[in-house]
């Protein structure tokens, strides 16, 4: 169980130079073991996507090391990185990213062309996945005709087709309704539990906390310890609704205090006239 699938040490990534430089990821180290479901949470802009891009061999860190299967990823050239992604890593994106011109089945089989086994051997597995993810009736459909939940299930099948040891999912439920989001979460949970595949999941969705093996909290590019409480309730200063500070993604600063909002609408109103709302203290 404790065999590491991925090991990252002292990862740093900065965008831009000088005055406009943003240290998106600042000295992050972590180990993901086989079959583990790791959740990364953190406010918007805290570097979650940047971190996942580096772990998934899509983006080169400025410094630090990433080891997958005893291979030092940061030393590979572009061609080897692409080959590594094709064989060992699966991605699930917030905006699904299916190829519009291809059918559901072709989308699922697409990465199989890049694996050693080829498409023929992957076809049977694709049938299983279609079955498991309840996509069989839609196998010949074009992505444009699918619902969001269906699209994300196709994307999950595509990520699984080459039986990767690592799956990275960046806000996979961000564009889904509550029920479809719940389904996707449970599928990812099953993947980690049943297939021995490690899943690194970036999300704002608090429901996943119950099934995650580990939750990492990223803030300003660095991993922080998360308090033990499951929730930290604060009040939206505009509408007065209860918001979980840990998972909320909308913030604003005023007079040295930090405010959390339930929606963009509330945030927009606050920004126009902060003094109207900032008077009441937030914490309950």
């Amino acid at each position, binding site marked *: 169980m404790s065999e590491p699938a991925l090991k990252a040490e002292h990862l740093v990534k900065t965008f831009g130079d000088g005055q406009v430089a943003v240290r998106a990821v600042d000295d992050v180290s972590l180990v993901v073991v086989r079959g583990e479901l790791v959740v990364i949470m953190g406010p918007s802009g805290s570097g979650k996507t940047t971190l996942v891009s580096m772990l998934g061999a899509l983006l080169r860190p400025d410094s630090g090391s990433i080891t997958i299967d005893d291979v030092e990823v940061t030393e590979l050239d572009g061609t080897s990185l692409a080959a590594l992604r094709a064989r060992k890593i699966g991605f699930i994106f917030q905006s699904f990213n299916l190829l519009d011109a291809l059918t559901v089945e072709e989308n699922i089989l697409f*990465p199989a062309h890049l694996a050693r086994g080829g498409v023929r051997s992957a076809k049977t597995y694709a049938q299983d996945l279609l079955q498991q993810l309840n996509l069989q009736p839609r196998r010949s459909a074009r992505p444009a005709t699918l619902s969001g939940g269906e699209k994300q299930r196709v994307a999950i099948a595509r990520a699984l087709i080459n039986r990767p040891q690592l799956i990275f999912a960046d806000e996979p439920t961000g564009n889904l309704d509550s029920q479809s989001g719940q389904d996707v979460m449970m599928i990812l949970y099953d993947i980690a539990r049943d297939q021995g595949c490690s899943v690194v999941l970036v999300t704002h969705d608090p429901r996943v906390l119950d099934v995650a093996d580990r939750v990492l909290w990223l803030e300003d590019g660095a991993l922080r310890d998360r308090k033990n409480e499951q929730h930290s309730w604060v009040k939206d200063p505009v509408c007065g609704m209860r918001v979980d500070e840990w998972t909320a993604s909308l913030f604003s600063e005023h007079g040295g205090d930090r405010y959390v909002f339930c929606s963009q609408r509330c945030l927009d109103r606050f920004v126009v006239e902060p003094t109207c709302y900032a008077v009441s203290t937030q914490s309950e």
Partner: protein
Amino acid sequence: MIRWILKSLTSEPWHLVASVSAIGGAFALALFFEAVFAGESKQIVAYIDQSDADVWVMQRGVSNMHMATSYVSDWKADKIENIEGVNKVTPILYLNTVMQAGGRSWFSFIVGIESGNARAGPWSIAEGKQLPGPGEAIVPAVLARLAGLGVGDTISIAGHEFTVAGLSDGTFSMANSITFVTLADLADIMSTFASMSYFLVDVAPGVDSIALAKRVTSEIEKVNAVDNRHFTKNDREVAMQMGLEIIVLMTVIGGTLAILLTGFSVHSSVSRKEHEFAVMKALGVQNKMIYFCVMVYAIGLALLGFSLAVILVLVATPITASFVPQVTLQVTMPALLRFIVAALVVALLAAILPVRRIVRIDPVQAFKVS
């Protein structure tokens, strides 16, 4: 994989149709000028071609017909006829001049032929007589149509009036037209006596024209004899000198346009699919695979465009012939082959344009929420 990437590249039918049409248009333009050039260069030597003499004999120092002047004493015909291997000698008089017809001036080649001898006369008649009698002329049917003339109307050649007795086919091009009159009438116009311009020599079966031409040149003083093939070549060279440059220029413009349009289409297809390419890269597709597919796509576009151009020009040929009779279009096999090669070169050039762009597409883009 290649098939699926191509499927993605070609997933927008209207974009594809627009690209192929634009490329097809540019190729059609180039092909059209090429066809005009081929048609004109065939038409310009139509008389030499159709009269099909094995050897042409003319004044020494002259080696072609277009815009040339040649005088040879008529008695030399007998001397040529006596050379072994010569079957038949037919004399013609020939003059480049301006002719008045239907109130307009027409640059024309006037050919004077022996009365009653069709050997050097018009080869295809649309209407009226085949051979001119005294005071009669056989004019090109196309010229008659453009000038609004018919059989029985009057034209004027160098101040002499002639009655149109017949209309001939295949005797008109943008650069020249051929009018036939009798030898005697043309001699009168040219004020010559006992002189001919050219002798058309037919050789006996099995005799080598080139060798015979050499013999004629060496045995008969002050003449130049040229075999049919070289005579045609000389004439075409002289006649096409100026036209050629223009046509080559137009063909180059059409070709450049095709390159630009193919390049633009390929480039815009790549741009439109940038996000999908980023996703493919994130999934592990290599740059060279994407690049290969873009190249196949470019070749496909160029070949489709080219096929469309061929169809357009083949359709345009008969239409041009009936609406613009003075232009002769000819689509030749060598020209088509040359254009296919050009189309492939165009495709490869066009595929080079988006290389940098493809390489620069960042797979991290796949995480961007559209």
